[in-house]
C-alpha cells in the first residue's frame, strides 16, 4: 500500500534511460548472507544490462549508515537499497533520499518514515524469520515428545542489536503460539554473535542447568545456534536430545554435508542471492520503466534439514 510513496516521486521526474547506478547499502556486509545478497544483486544487474551497482558495508554502525546514504546521494545514484543497522534510523534515511528525489527501498529490515509509513521492502524481515524458526523448533519439540519441565530453550544473540532481538522475539512468539502457555524456560545468552563466544557462554548456562534432559536451541544467526549446539554436545548431551534450529544454514549445513550426527536439526534458509536479485530488479524497474515498487517482496525461504538442504540451494563452502 505504501511503496508508492517513494516510487511516486521518481515517477514524476520521468523514467531514465542509459546507464543506471544503484547503491546497495548493507549492514554487516562482511557476513555470508549479505555477501550472497550483493552477489545476487550484481548478477541481476548484469542480466538487466547497463546497471552499475555500488555495494557499501555499514557494519553495525548507524552513524556510518547516515554518512553512506549522504555519500551515495552526493554521487547521484539512481536508486538506493538499504539494509539498515538499526531500524530507528529509518526516518532519517527516507527523508534524506526523498529530499534528493532518489527512490529508496528497504531490504531485509523494514524501515518507516517519520509518519510511520513503511518504505518498499524486499526480503524477509526479522520477526518473520524468528517466527519460522520458532515454528520449526516447536514442531521438533512436539515430535520428540519432550516435556516443558525437563527441557530448556537456549536463545543466543547479541542483545544490543535490535535485529537480533526481533528474531529471537519472533521465535519465542511462534513457539509459544504453537505449543501453548506451558513452554520450557527460555534462557537468553548474550553473545557477540560469534560461534566461539556462544560456545563459551553456553558452557556456563549448561552448568547452571544441570539435570535438564532436552534442549531447544535457536539464535540470532547460525553462529549462535551452532556454537550453543557444539557446547551442548561437548558437555555430553546426545544429538538426539538437542533440537537446534539455525538461521541462515551456512554453518549448520556443514554438519549435514559431512553426514555427522548433530543437534543442528534444521535451519531457516533465506536465499540472499534471491533477495538481492529481487530488490535490484524492482528498483531498476522503477527507475527505468516507472514500474511501482512492490510494497513487499517477501523472499523465498525454506526450512532446510540434513535431507533437503542441497536441493533448496544452500551453498556450503
Amino acid at each position, binding site marked *: 500500500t505504501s511503496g508508492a510513496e517513494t516510487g511516486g516521486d521518481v515517477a514524476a521526474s520521468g523514467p531514465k534511460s542509459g546507464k543506471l547506478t544503484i547503491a546497495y547499502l548493507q549492514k554487516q556486509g562482511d557476513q555470508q548472507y549479505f555477501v550472497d545478497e550483493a552477489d545476487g544483486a550484481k548478477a541481476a544487474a548484469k542480466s538487466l544490462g547497463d546497471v552499475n551497482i555500488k555495494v557499501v558495508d555499514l557494519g*553495525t554502525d*548507524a552513524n556510518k549508515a547516515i554518512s553512506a546514504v549522504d555519500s551515495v*546521494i552526493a554521487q547521484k545514484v539512481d536508486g538506493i537499497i538499504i539494509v539498515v543497522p538499526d531500524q530507528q534510523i529509518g526516518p*532519517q534515511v527516507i527523508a534524506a533520499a526523498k529530499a534528493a528525489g532518489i527512490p529508496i527501498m528497504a531490504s531485509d529490515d523494514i524501515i518507516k518514515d517519520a509518519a510511520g509509513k513503511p518504505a518498499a521492502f524486499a526480503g524477509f524481515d526479522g520477526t518473520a524469520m524468528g517466527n519460522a524458526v520458532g515454528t520449526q523448533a516447536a514442531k521438533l519439540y512436539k515430535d520428540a515428545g519432550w516435556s516443558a519441565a525437563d527441557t530448556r530453550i537456549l536463545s543466543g544473540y547479541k542483545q*544490543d542489536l535490535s535485529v537480533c532481538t526481533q528474531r529471537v522475539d519472533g521465535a519465542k512468539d511462534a513457539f509459544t503460539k504453537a505449543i501453548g502457555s506451558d513452554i520450557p524456560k527460555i534462557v537468553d545468552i548474550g553473545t557477540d554473535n560469534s560461534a566461539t563466544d556462544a560456545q563459551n557462554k553456553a558452557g556456563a548456562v549448561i552448568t547452571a542447568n544441570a539435570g535438564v534432559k532436552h534442549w531447544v536451541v535457536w539464535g540470532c544467526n547460525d553462529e549462535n545456534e551452532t556454537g550453543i549446539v557444539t557446547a551442548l554436545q561437548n558437555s555430553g548431551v546426545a544429538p538426539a536430545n538437542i533440537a537446534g534450529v539455525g538461521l541462515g544454514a551456512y554453518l549448520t549445513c556443514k554438519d549435514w554435508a559431512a553426514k555427522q550426527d548433530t543437534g543442528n536439526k534444521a535451519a531457516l534458509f533465506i536465499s540472499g542471492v534471491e533477495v538481492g536479485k529481487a530488490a535490484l530488479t524492482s528498483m531498476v524497474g522503477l527507475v527505468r520503466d516507472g514500474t511501482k515498487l512492490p510494497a513487499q517482496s517477501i523472499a523465498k525461504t525454506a526450512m532446510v534439514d540434513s535431507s533437503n538442504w542441497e536441493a533448496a540451494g544452500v551453498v556450503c563452502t
Partner: protein
Amino acid sequence: MSSTDIAVPASDLVAAPSPIRRVFAAVGVQNISLLIAIAVLVVIIGTQNPLFFGLNNIRVIGTAIAVTGLLAVVQTVVIIMGALDISVGSIAGLTSVTSAMIFTVAGPALGVVGAVAIGIICGLLNGCIIVFGRVNPVIATLATLAAFKGIAQLVSDGRAQGYTGANPFFVFLARGTLLGIPTLIVVLIVAAILAHVVLRYTSIGRNIYAVGGNDIASRLAGININRYILGVYMVTGAVAAIAGILITARTGSGQPVSGSEGLELESITAAALGGAALKGGKGTIMGTILAVILLGILTNGMTLLDVNAFWQNVAKGALLVIAVIIQQLRSKERRIGLPA
C-alpha cells in the same frame, strides 16, 4: 620530528625566509607528508570519478568526519598529556542515548545540557580512577569503556531511544548550515580551533605538553599534574558528549552502542597518524585534522570508486603504513630503538 609545537622555529629568527618555507614551517614537516598523501589521493580519486570534486561530495566528506574528528581532537589532547582515553566511544554512546531520552521528556535544551553533564561526569570518573586510584590511563579507560557501554545498554535496554528527527534543533545539527557550512562541520571546526589555540597559545596548553613530555619535570616545576589530568578527562567527556549528541541528531534517535563502537580506535588512529606520539608530549591539532580528512577522503573515495569492502580494509591498512613511513623517512630522528 616535532614541528609546529616547537617554539618559534629558528627560521623566524633568520631574516625574511622564503614564503614557501614559511608555509612549510607553519604547516609543519610532519604534516607535509599528510598533505602530500591527501593530494595524491584526491588526484587519483578525482581522475577516476570527477563527481568527487562536487561541492555536495565535499560536504558529505565533511559531515561524515565530524564525529570522528571531534573525538580525534580531544584524543590528541589526551595523548599529548601522555595518557589515552579508550572510553570516548562508550561515552558518546551513553550520551547519545541519554540525550535522546532526556529530550523526549524535557526538550532539546535539557537534552543537550544533560548529555554534556553526563559526559563530564564520565570524564571526571575516568580522571578520578587515574588520579586517586593510581590506575594507568589505558586500563582505567578500558574498564570504563565496558562500564559506560553497559550503563548505556541498561538505561536503554539495548535499544535505540526516542526520535529527534522532527525537532528543529536536532535537524539543524544534523542537516542545517551556518553561513553555508553544514553545522556538523562548524562544530568540528570550532572544537579544533579552540583546542589548537589552547594547546598553542595558552599556558594551560603548554603545561599539557610539559606534563606529557616529562611528568617529573612538570611536577618539580610546580605544575599540579592531577588537576590537569582531571581537567583534560572532563573536557574529553564533554566533547565526547557533543559527539554523542551529533550521533543522535544524525541518526534521529539515541543509539546506545551502534554508531559509537570503535570510535576509540578511530580517534587514536587519527591522532597517531597526525603525528601525536603515544608517549606523550608531542602532537598537533593540525596534524590530527589532516589525518581525519585523509581517512575521510579515503573512505569516501573508495565508496565512490566502488572498491569492495574487503579491499577497503586492505587499502586502509596499507595507506596508514605508507603515510607513517613517509613521515618517518622525512623526519630526521635517529633510526634506533623502538619507533616512538
